């Protein structure tokens, strides 16, 4: 392809020439270099999503192994030690390697498109984030293969995970895997915050931001405020284990409950980090398939913000049986119950939208209806366990296991699957199968309820979580067998989903720009979008730009085509301020991630790894930031 002449404006070129010039400027190189140096948010997000779903499948296999072991009493499928590793891996993997990354990845793909910009803010940081996430996942799973996976539960309570009881490197691998995933998550959070605040299409004032984008913005702020707690917690755990600090050692003035406070100060907001993006997906899907804007836009945004604030005042409800002061318990009971208010507001707004709309029951909407049913049940048991006497009874039983699978699978995975069906044509350019989609929905919905509902009863019957087996005289046998068999139905549903997704990337029906006739900007460009997203930057003057003016998109001209250029706009009114440059591909984020990985893994074994390991990290970062003679560096 020919070089694009300096300072060629989009308005000087005919549409085909403009597309060719932009394609040249925004091109990601092919080959290994392109793989390692790519900074296109769509490429990075696709990798993130595929990797996260691979971890979902792996975590599902672990769940099946546990169900196999628990199907009957005194089973000998897994050893107690393997079982401990497997339930720890399952929880850790699902929370840190699947749920949070996949939600952020959906944001990485969709937010720039939905706000009408050409790449995410800090695209190189985005590339770095993916490599770090991948390294963290690899660390955990390689440790599992080597039989040295963590075995202390996904919240790794001390003293079990401390130096006294947690011999070997298992707990360190858990703690350092946390550091990897939190660095990755924090990086994405910063990118999304800045993209939403500063790169919105001209005219997309705060009250015209799509609800999914609002949900990602709020989620990113929760990530920013919550994740430092777990980074400090996991670091201090490693310090206790490696260099003899006493943060969690009561004999020397430390405290074991400090761990629980730090963990849950992160851990409870974590639930909303997973749930709020799902809420945004639900709003997007309902809007499109109910054929009308979401009822109560302002109430929805306020509910998102209220949830994110309340999320930080709930953590102690995970610690009701630790003997905390009565006043504390009452406060956290009240705050835990109050979160039902914003959740309720959202549910009623969705119902009102469906009520007033003309719903089209395609697969994405089915998953959303499944979400509403399941999430309401999970929410109700949530209100139940918020009460201290009830919680004392069911703490650490299968009732809690049932509750959080209802809110996490029902509340987040259902909308996510709906979201995959909904945005798959945008991402791949092909539709998924409606028949297989409905089939997978019903298998998953029925299989999920048959698997997890009986766990409520098992919990009430006193079955503790995290036991590798139980005696034949316990009254749990029949239900456990039933749960294990039902889990096969659930797995069959996921298999159909995976087969459909993989098959559709090759043979699915080609998708048009806007196959669902949706109202938001990601549907105003080709499916899949070109590297530059939009040939001309959209201009917005309503909440549903593609419905307000069907078939015609208002755009702005005057941007350069030889330079990766996008519009930076004001925070509130989205008035255009600058034609800012967006960085080109770079290998340095990859090297920075490699150097960081070496430093972090080394520091499990010796504190000096931090000192010597920081030198290559610094070199990589300097290489990253050192200006190159590109048109993007012009001022």
């Amino acid at each position, binding site marked *: 392809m020919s070089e694009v002449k300096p300072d060629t404006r989009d308005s000087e070129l005919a549409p085909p020439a403009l597309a060719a010039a932009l394609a040249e400027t925004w091109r990601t190189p092919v080959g290994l270099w392109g793989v390692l140096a790519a900074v296109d948010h769509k490429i990075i997000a696709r990798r993130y999503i595929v990797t996260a779903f691979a971890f979902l499948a792996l975590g599902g296999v672990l769940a099946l192994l546990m169900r196999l072991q628990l199907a009957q009493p005194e089973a000998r499928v897994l050893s107690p030690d393997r079982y401990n590793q497997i339930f720890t891996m399952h929880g850790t993997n699902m929370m840190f390697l699947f749920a949070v990354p996949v939600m952020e990845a959906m944001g990485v793909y969709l937010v720039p498109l939905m706000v009408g910009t050409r790449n995410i*803010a800090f695209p190189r940081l985005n590339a770095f984030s993916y490599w770090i996430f991948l390294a963290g996942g690899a660390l955990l799973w390689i440790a599992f293969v080597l039989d040295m996976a963590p075995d202390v539960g996904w919240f790794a309570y001390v003293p079990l995970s401390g130096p006294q009881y947690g011999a070997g490197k298992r707990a360190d691998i858990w703690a350092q895997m946390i550091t990897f995933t939190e660095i990755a998550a924090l990086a994405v959070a910063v990118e999304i915050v800045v993209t939403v605040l500063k790169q919105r299409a001209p005219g997309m004032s705060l009250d015209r931001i799509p609800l999914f984008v609002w949900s990602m913005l709020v989620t990113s702020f929760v990530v920013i405020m919550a994740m430092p707690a777990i980074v400090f917690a996991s670091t201090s755990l490693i*310090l206790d284990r490696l260099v003899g600090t006493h943060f969690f050692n009561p004999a020397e003035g430390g405290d074991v409950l400090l761990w629980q406070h730090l963990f849950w100060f992160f851990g409870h907001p974590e639930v909303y980090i997973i749930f709020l993006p799902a809420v945004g997906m639900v709003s997007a899907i309902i809007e499109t398939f109910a054929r009308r804007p979401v009822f109560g836009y302002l109430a929805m945004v306020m509910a998102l913000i209220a949830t994110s604030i309340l999320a930080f005042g709930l953590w102690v409800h995970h610690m009701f049986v630790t003997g905390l002061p009565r006043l504390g318990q009452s406060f956290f009971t009240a705050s835990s119950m109050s979160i039902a208010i914003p959740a309720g507001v959202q549910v009623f707004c969705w119902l009102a939208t469906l009520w007033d709309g003309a719903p089209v029951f395609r697969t994405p909407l089915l998953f959303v209806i499944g979400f509403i049913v399941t999430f309401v049940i999970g929410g109700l048991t949530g209100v139940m366990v918020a009460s201290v006497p009830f919680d004392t009874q069911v703490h650490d039983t299968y009732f809690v296991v049932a509750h959080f699978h209802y809110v996490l699978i029902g509340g987040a995975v259902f909308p996510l699957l709906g979201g995959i069906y909904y945005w798959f044509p945008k991402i791949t350019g092909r539709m998924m199968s409606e028949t297989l989609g409905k089939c997978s929905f019903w298998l998953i919905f029925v299989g999920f309820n048959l698997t997890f509902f009986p766990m409520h009863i098992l919990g009430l019957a006193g079955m503790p979580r995290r036991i590798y087996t139980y005696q034949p005289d316990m009254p749990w046998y029949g239900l456990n067998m039933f749960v294990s068999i039902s889990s096969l139905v659930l797995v069959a549903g996921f298999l159909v989903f995976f087969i459909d997704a993989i098959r559709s990337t090759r043979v699915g029906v080609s998708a048009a720009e806007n196959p669902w006739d949706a109202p938001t900007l990601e549907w105003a460009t080709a499916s899949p979008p070109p590297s530059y997203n939009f040939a001309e930057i959209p*201009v917005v003057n309503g909440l549903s730009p593609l419905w307000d003016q069907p078939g015609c998109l*208002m755009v702005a001209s005057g941007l350069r085509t030889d330079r990766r250029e996008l519009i930076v706009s004001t925070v509130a009114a989205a008035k255009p301020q600058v034609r800012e440059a967006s960085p080109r591909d770079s290998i340095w984020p990859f090297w920075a991630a490699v150097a960081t990985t070496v430093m972090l893994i080394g520091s499990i074994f010796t504190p000096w790894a931090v000192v010597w390991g920081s030198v290559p990290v610094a070199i990589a970062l300097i290489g990253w930031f050192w200006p190159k003679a590109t048109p993007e560096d012009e001022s």
Partner: protein
Amino acid sequence: MKTRVVADFSGLPIHGFRSASVTWWGTLAFMLIEATGFALVIAVYLYLMNLAAIWPIDAPKPNLLPGTLVTVILLVSAIPNYLTSRWAEREDFRRIRIGMVLMSVLGTVPLAVRAFEFPALNVNWDSNAYGSVVWALLGLHTAHLITDLVDTLVLAALMFTRKGDNVRRFGDVQDNAMYWNFVVVTWLPIYGCIYWIPRL
């Protein structure tokens, strides 16, 4: 989809300062992350203090001199830091160079004094939980001193290359100055926590 051109942005500048720059907002977001981290460690300090019968646990109070010296140097450094930022805004290349050299020195000096702060804590990280948390506080802040010093040194070096005289670099200088202010301001509560709470 058909498009209709409704605006022309060819007249917009191709680089923005401060709140018109994404880097500025990114720096702000990272400051929020780190400020949350500092606040948490201070909360841990207070939590452990609340549990302890005596505070500091089995250790003399930390010596005031090195920490106070660092505080004074950091506060003084805020003045040239402010000036450097102003020169960057005025795109006064000669003065920016002077300012960056000055800030490189003023970043190195507190770090050198900081080396004397750790022994002045009069407790080791592995003596008890009090020792662990004060070392964590001081260590965390020192990590920020080092990071910003490296950033300042690299930027200062850049100012003496061909790539220095570029408005984008001046924006970087401003963001770097903002971050230094953050490092100075966050030190104050940590200083109060480490040195003065045990004396209350």
